């Protein structure tokens, strides 16, 4: 048994310790907002927060998060400035990459509440979007940074 918390809720799973966290979240815990795009840490679709830091869940063995705290897209409050900004800028197209984009953006803003374009490029260039929503993502991050209230993860 490996136990950790996801979005504040305690989870216990009985899987081989090398099972990627991504599939534990999606298949065992049933939270499907976290997406699969490459399985090799190349696209960022599977980005979640481990104790507040953005990580790639597809290459993180579940054993590595024992006793730790994971946040997924479902754990970001609906009124979070990043989610609000994403809606205001109408960012998503197909939508598949967006949870990963949002998780990367919330982690960025938690660390750097007023990132410039270069900081955004640095933090976000690892998260691929086949639909090309990049410019809107950047605008949404600037918008979220300009909003009142908390910019980081809960």
């Amino acid at each position: 048994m490996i136990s950790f918390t996801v979005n504040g809720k305690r989870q216990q799973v009985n899987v081989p310790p090398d099972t990627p966290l991504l599939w534990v979240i999606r298949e065992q815990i049933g939270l499907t907002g976290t997406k699969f795009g490459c399985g090799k840490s190349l696209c960022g679709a599977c980005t979640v927060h481990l104790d507040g830091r953005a990580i790639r869940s597809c290459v993180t063995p579940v054993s590595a998060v024992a006793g730790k705290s994971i946040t997924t897209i479902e754990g970001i409050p609906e009124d979070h400035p990043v989610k609000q900004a994403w809606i205001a800028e109408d960012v998503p197209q197909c939508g598949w990459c967006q949870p990963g984009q949002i998780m990367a953006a919330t982690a960025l803003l938690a660390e750097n509440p007023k990132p410039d374009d270069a900081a955004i490029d640095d933090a976000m260039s690892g998260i691929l979007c086949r639909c090309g929503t990049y410019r809107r993502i950047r605008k949404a991050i600037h918008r979220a940074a300009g909003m009142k209230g908390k910019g980081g993860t809960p």
Partner: protein
Amino acid sequence: MSGSTAISRRAFLKTGAVLGGGLIIGVHLPLGAALGVQPPEETFAPNAFLRIGSDNSITVIVNKSEMGQGVYTALPMIVAEELEVDPAVIRVEAAPVAPAYNHALWGMQVTGGSTSVRTEWERLAQAGAAARQMLTAAAAGTWQVKPAECRAENGQVIHLPTGRRLSYGRLADAASRLQPPKSVTLKGPKEQKVIGRGVKRLDTPAKVNGTAPFGLDVAVPGMLTAVVARPPVFGARAKRIREDLAEKVPGVKRILPIDAGVGVVAESLPAALKGREALEIEWDEGPLAGLDSARQRETYAEMAKKPGAVAASRGNADAALEKAAKRIDAVYTLPYLAHAPMEPLNCVASVRPDGCDIWVGTQMQTGDRDAAAKITGLPKEKISLRTMFLGGGFGRRAVPDSHFVREAVQLSKGIGKPVKVVWTREDDIHGGWYRPSSYNVLAAGLDRAGMPLAWTHRIVCQSIITGTPFEGGMLKNGIDETSVEGAADSPYEVPNFRCDYHMAPAGVPVLWWRSVGHSFTAFVKESFIDELAHAAGHDPYRYRRALLAKHPRVAGVLDLAAEKAGWGKPLPAGRGRGIAVHESFGSFIAQVAEVSVNGEGEIRVHRVVCAVDCGRFVNPEIIASQMESGVAFGLSAALHGAITFANGRVQQSNFYDYPIIRMREMPEVETHIARNGEKPGGIGEPGVPPIAPAVANALFALTGARLRTLPLTPERVREAMGKG
């Protein structure tokens, strides 16, 4: 599309009551020869396009797949306009598979060819207008007043003289008992409040909070997960399978050979993947075992020495080439490309003795449903297919052989449980169904003033259409329309012209890839016209312009893009500008790209100005986002994309060697839309074709290096700059 339309002329309306109260509206367009079947009365209810519930809910049933292009917003907007409701209150439901939801031209349910708004506009507008008229009549009946004294507005009917109001929900039941109107009055452009506005996408909230249901997110009770060990070479067959080690992997349930390869069915995806790794398969590699990209290029070059099937011809191109003051020759080559949608392919199937359920992100519902009926032996009505959100389509989820649905159905049938088949990214990149590679031989003859007298274009390319249900309409005299589109119909006025075609040998599975043939013909046509302009010493924009007298819409977007981009005005040092224009899917797009190149030969695209003429349109914000999307998609191909073969094997496997552009590579994209009353054109694909030539032309303007092979890799750029 304004004024009164007699419905009987084009379509017939069916109306009825919703179980539990409410009004439903269906519109059946009499379809072309392909079908013409009217659904029987009892199946009417599920075939509705619009449902108004007594609870004031308004549901639009959309027969097109949402894959990012915005149909779950644009199509409901058409209904909202005529129905007089705020589009934001509309719920969208994916249509089930039924003839009523067929593509208006293609006789089957399919999303593709950038046709959704074009083919659905009329019937959705009629459904909305009919509902509005019936609700208004119901209100007038309730109040015992003349319908002319009532007006529908924002989900209510108002009696103007008294100010009384009734909501649509309150009226829906009474309306459902009325006869459907014989004709409906559609709004004129001046009365429109929704159409033409940048309405927010209806699917954004669900895509932001992670609840939007995609195919890969489906889980049903008792479901197992499978991967397929796929052949290492296209057409290879498993000769010997050693499954004992794989079967011992904890969680693996069954090893099951199917058409696609060897299925590994397990309790979880990680277990299935481990099982696949432990599987030992000896393959009979078949005729493509030696496939090699360099050799294929030689074969194509050899084929191109002989005349091909003539797709278009006027004047006498050969004679004119001989007489010309100057002759220019060029060869353009483009590689195979994978679609690489961000959501890897997947399908869930649950086959039972009495029925079969399928959950899938697909662009071709009817074919997929029929394939499942064939495999299970069940009647088509017993197959229920639910269309999920598509994490990208780009044509990859429109497969005439239904392969990714078939494998799930075969595995579920074999094991007697619901099965989800998942493709890994490697399966996707290795898995074929690529944009075909092409070899293009061009020649042009210029007169003394530098204007073209002759233009010939010979294309060697595999056929996409051969073997599909579209063969009858799109394969003529050995010419696949999708191999020559955008080339054979070049708008440039050249008196002596020929475009001919050699169908390259089949083998590698090929497919429509966002913008299909235009994805390569635009690069060839727009690069070569640029070559001619420079050879003639003319400005490439003005040169094109002079050859477009008979194509005002092409010329129009060219002018618009040039003006907005500041064509001819000085650029910062180290920047070059290139232009390209192309018509596809009923729309006209011109793009001006501003690029720089660093010492490594890496191209950076800073800004793209995009001019669009797609006739009458629904949502300018969706047009803008589709232009950004088309530029990003086309730029990935222009700068990075290539699928190549050695020893029959695909040499790429994931995003490290099949890169797509990242945020730091994304240019600023400015979209300018021409406003006119022309017929609506497509918007999902036409943004792709012009970007590669615009960038290559900008590179030439900047460096004098002309690249005729995609992608424009740093090695190729360095080499061309060294030479040039």
